[in-house]
């Protein structure tokens, strides 16, 4: 990358965005450790370039479907971090009213149609959302992010085949952090991975370095353009690394400290920072981007901690229209 071509303003804003994602994850982990997050938490530390470059390459009214590791995607799509943090803490004012938690984070106002607790299920929903856009004649597109573990579930095949035969506007993104929980996904994945599988279905696909913000953005933007141009689905395989455990509670003893240390030297935030430093941005300016992000997310956590829980009656709302009366405690019984 020729540094003289760097758009410093834009890249600084992207670095800030990456800092926001990381700071959100760090505050969330902190909140889990302090006992404020009651449920499971899957941080995306080390994968921030994917969130910023890929989600950043679609519009606010485009549709996003993500995974259990979806905080970064949701934030970049435009969701309010305080509402997200409240959701993680199960508080009123959470973006799902506290009913979903981290694994079901969603903000329909910014086109984020949900994380998902079932690995692979989001691909089919994404294909269907794209199907609806096609049927309605809309020009919006769907961005669907899933992990390297998801490509071994049937829905990967069914969704890609579906999107391709109907030529639907969806960009499939395999955000490959090398692990499926405690398992190295390479050990359970036959063949050459998602690009080869997509191509076998006739879907043009590309691999990119998921920690190289600019290269990734360039590839994502190109594929988004093709999808938006009505050329049918595309697949992007972004190779990154999960720097922390599968969940915030996982110390990941199944991998060497040396391996992880080496990967920390490939940290996408550090890499982007180096680029900007090389382009003459001062350390102080860069630190201030991080500090601003930290402050924002600390404030979000403080507010979320201060917020109350939703009223218990919320346990019984939003179930279905037709039997509100029957969804009472004690079920159908007298």
């Amino acid at each position: 990358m020729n540094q003289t071509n760097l758009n410093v303003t834009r890249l600084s804003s992207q670095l800030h965005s990456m800092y926001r994602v990381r700071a959100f994850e760090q505050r969330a982990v902190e909140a889990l450790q302090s006992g404020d997050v009651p449920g499971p938490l899957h941080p995306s530390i080390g994968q921030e370039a994917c969130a910023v470059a890929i989600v950043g390459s679609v519009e606010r009214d485009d549709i996003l479907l993500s995974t259990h590791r979806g905080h970064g995607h949701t934030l970049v799509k435009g969701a309010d971090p305080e509402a997200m943090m409240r959701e993680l803490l199960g508080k009123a004012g959470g973006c799902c009213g506290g009913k979903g938690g981290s694994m079901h984070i969603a903000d329909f106002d910014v086109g984020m149609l949900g994380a998902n607790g079932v690995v692979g299920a989001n691909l089919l929903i994404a294909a269907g959302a794209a199907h609806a856009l096609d049927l309605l004649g809309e020009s919006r597109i769907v961005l669907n992010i899933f992990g390297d573990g998801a490509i071994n579930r049937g829905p990967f095949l069914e969704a890609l085949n579906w999107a391709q035969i109907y030529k639907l506007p969806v960009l499939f993104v395999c955000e490959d952090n090398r692990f499926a929980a405690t398992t190295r996904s390479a050990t359970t994945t036959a063949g050459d991975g998602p690009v080869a599988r997509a191509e076998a279905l006739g879907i043009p696909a590309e691999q990119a370095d998921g920690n190289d913000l600019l290269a990734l953005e360039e590839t994502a933007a190109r594929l988004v353009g093709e999808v938006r141009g009505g050329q049918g689905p595309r697949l992007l395989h972004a190779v990154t690394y999960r720097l922390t455990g599968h969940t915030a509670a996982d110390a990941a003893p199944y991998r060497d400290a040396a391996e992880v240390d080496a990967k920390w030297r490939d940290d996408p935030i550090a890499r982007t920072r180096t680029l900007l430093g090389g382009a003459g941005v001062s350390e102080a300016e860069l630190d201030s981007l991080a500090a601003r992000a930290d402050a924002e997310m600390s404030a979000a956590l403080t507010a979320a901690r201060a917020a109350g829980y939703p009223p218990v009656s919320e346990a019984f709302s939003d179930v279905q229209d037709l039997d509100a009366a029957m969804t009472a405690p004690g079920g159908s019984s007298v």
Partner: protein
Amino acid sequence: MSRMTYAQASAAALRFEMQRDATVWALGEDLGRGGVFGQYRGLQQEFGAKRIVDTPISEAAIMGAAVGAAMMGTRPVVEMRFSDFALCAIDELVNQAAKARYMFGGQTRVPLVAREPVGMWRASAAQHSQSLEAWYTHIPGLVVVMPSTPSDNRGLLAAAIRADDPVVYLEHKDLWGVEGEVPDGDYVVPIGEAAVRREGSDVTLLSWSRTVAECELAAASLAERGIAAEVIDLRTLWPWDRETVYASVRKTGRVLITHEAVQVGGFGAELAADLSETQFGVLKAPVTRLGAPRAPIAYSPPLESAVKVQADAIAARAAALLS
């Protein structure tokens, strides 16, 4: 009124809804050739391949795509062909469709209809004959409908398509050819209302789907023996019509619940448990169930018949409640 079959009535309903609302569409295997039971006949010709969609054999994708498309504001009608194959799409229905509205705190709705033809039909054997309605009644977020007549198939399918929550719509394969008078025009049968098919004061025969006809036969034979049976067609299993059922039980004091599904863990258990508890004081005899034995369904016709709930057995059971 027009005379038509149960299959044709469903096509008429879908046609009417598709004309009425451009966001209604259907997806499933072989729909362009009318569907395996002819219940989509002519619709692709009329509405085109984008609204009557021929799909691959990808049940998970059919249901999963419908979830996404429903969240985007369309009203997909999912065709599962045989309810048995819907087991290939259960995650999509139960973990996704049924829970999205709740899980996302009311941000979305999933107005899909999952059509899943159920039941024994022409020696279809263990993997093509099941009736699993009880499963769906157990899942919060799902509405469960089982029409037994052509006119109900017209009116209830319309209601299901207009409903804003996922509806599991279980037609019975053995009813496709049954003919009846069906209202024309804009006809809706409200979800949640049972129908009293025959009035009687001695015993209530509570059923749904194909077994209603067996109850009607049983009631006729009971009448010859001087027993006045009331026949109730539940039509909607969830939410079920307590008012109508309770009123009948209060009148008769005796209930036989019958269904084609396996008796153990069938929806009859829920009804029996509820009635036994809520009507404890008025019951003159124990609430009784008659469903299939807990065995898969065999291919050979005499074996298949052996597990079918039929009028004779219903009448005998009902009579025993009065003895």
